[in-house]
């Protein structure tokens, strides 16, 4: 019998929600790390009980937490009493040490001047597909780090930040964050990332060199709407069976690429608003995608006070609203970019969390929804594990 585990990061702690395959009765465990912001948690596909969490605070900085038992207990890698007994003697306590490679240099600030790169937090953790100890971290100010020792130490893949266009990258309203990391399951040396507000980038050599992949994006709010970089990409998504097809929720516009990001075309179609944050793909239907339209960049809530997920079964352009079980009046929550995920059961389960603290689940491809929990702190991220 399969089990579903939903990993929820919030403004004030982490929660682990579990259910059997019926997805009706849920157990809520938490808060873990009470009082801390949990930007993201994600489990390894190699060892689902290995989970990484980004714990952060404006006061006390970045912490990396690791669980080896499915989220029941946690440790800061390299700081446990067992490490004291290791051949290296004292633990290093460097699991939260994110130091840019070389002289960090500068990027563009909000006012157009140059500003030094400054590490602030980890937005997204992406475990590698072949080794539970190998994990990538997307950080603010935008850079990609990796750990090959289970999060005990981190090194920057600095070819990205040192790309020629780096001085032109600038922060979006939420900071200059690297928020999306997609690993090509057929070629792990190919990785796609996205930065707000720089755009999408691709490496084909495991992170040594990077190419901006923003051709076809149009952002009328920047000086050159078709610029090579500077686009506020909110999220990119991929189905593992079609890694050359990418979907993007941009600041405005929903986009798709069928050539690994080399070119993009708009597929916003009949959406009531093409502004939004998350985008995700059905587990078994590579052309079925989901977004949550938000009214505008200055009004971060659903149009008309109605919380609606939109589904396209044609890879974009034709969208249907999904409302059953979702509030259809007086709803003014937001759904943040890392707060939507899918399970791999049949029918596919879709999950998302809101800034109002609700986590909604659909066990029927999005046709109907129920809240798993209603009153958590603001939800920053949702990841789902399907356990066999």
């Amino acid at each position, binding site marked *: 019998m399969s089990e579903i585990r939903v990993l929820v990061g919030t403004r004030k702690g982490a929660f682990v929600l579990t259910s059997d395959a019926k997805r009706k009765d849920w157990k809520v465990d938490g808060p873990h*790390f*009470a*009082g*801390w912001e949990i930007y993201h948690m994600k489990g390894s596909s190699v060892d689902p009980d290995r989970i990484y969490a980004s714990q952060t*605070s*404006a*006061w*006390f*900085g*970045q*912490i990396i937490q690791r669980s080896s038992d499915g989220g029941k207990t946690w440790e*800061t890698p*390299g*700081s446990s009493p067992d*490490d004291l007994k290791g051949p290296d003697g*004292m*633990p*290093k*306590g*460097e*699991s*939260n*040490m994110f*130091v840019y490679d070389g002289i960090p240099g500068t990027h563009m600030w909000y006012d157009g001047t140059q500003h030094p790169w400054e590490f602030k937090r980890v937005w997204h953790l992406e475990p590698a597909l072949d080794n539970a100890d190998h994990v990538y971290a997307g950080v603010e100010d935008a850079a990609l780090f990796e750990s090959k020792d289970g999060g005990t130490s981190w090194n920057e893949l600095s070819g990205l930040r040192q790309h020629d266009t780096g001085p032109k990258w600038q922060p979006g309203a939420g900071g200059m964050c690297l928020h999306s990391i997609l690993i090509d399951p057929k070629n792990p040396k190919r990785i796609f990332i996205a930065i707000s507000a720089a755009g999408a980038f691709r490496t084909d050599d495991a992170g040594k060199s990077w190419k901006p992949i923003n051709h076809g994006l149009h952002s009328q709010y920047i000086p050159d709407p078709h610029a090579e970089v500077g686009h506020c990409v909110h999220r990119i998504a991929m189905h593992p069976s079609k890694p050359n097809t990418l979907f993007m929720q941009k600041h405005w516009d929903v986009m798709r690429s069928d050539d690994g990001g080399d070119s993009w075309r708009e597929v916003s179609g009949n959406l009531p608003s093409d502004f939004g944050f998350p985008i995700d793909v059905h587990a078994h239907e590579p052309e079925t995608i989901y977004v949550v339209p938000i009214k505008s960049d200055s009004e971060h809530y659903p149009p008309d006070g109605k919380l609606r997920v939109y589904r396209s079964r044609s890879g974009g352009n034709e969208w249907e609203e999904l409302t059953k079980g979702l509030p259809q009046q007086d709803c003014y929550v937001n759904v943040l970019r890392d707060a939507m995920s899918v399970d791999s059961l049949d029918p596919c389960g879709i999950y998302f969390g809101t800034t109002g603290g609700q986590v909604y689940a659909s066990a029927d491809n999005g046709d109907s929804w129920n809240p798993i929990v209603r009153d958590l702190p603001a939800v920053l991220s949702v990841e789902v594990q399907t356990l066999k």
Partner: protein
Amino acid sequence: MIRVILPHHLRTLAKVGDEVHVDLNGSATVKDVLDALENKYPMLRGTIREHNTLKRRPLVRFFACGEDISHESPDAPLPDPITKGEEPFFIMGAIAGG
């Protein structure tokens, strides 16, 4: 022995109670206390002061004997009541932001 009071968030991180102790005899400085604290609780490294520069994080404050000593040199001797364990050394998060 020096008594140290950690802010709530760092207590949960280090999995300790209200007060922790570090073994320092005789005179000691803020730097000595933080070095000893981080050796005993390595997960605190980078949370009170920056990893490489060892500069105090901007929203962290130090108090000794009722005085805010955050801006004093980390190499300045701590008052006797702190080094004798009569009063605790406070590490606090600034009241900002909620």
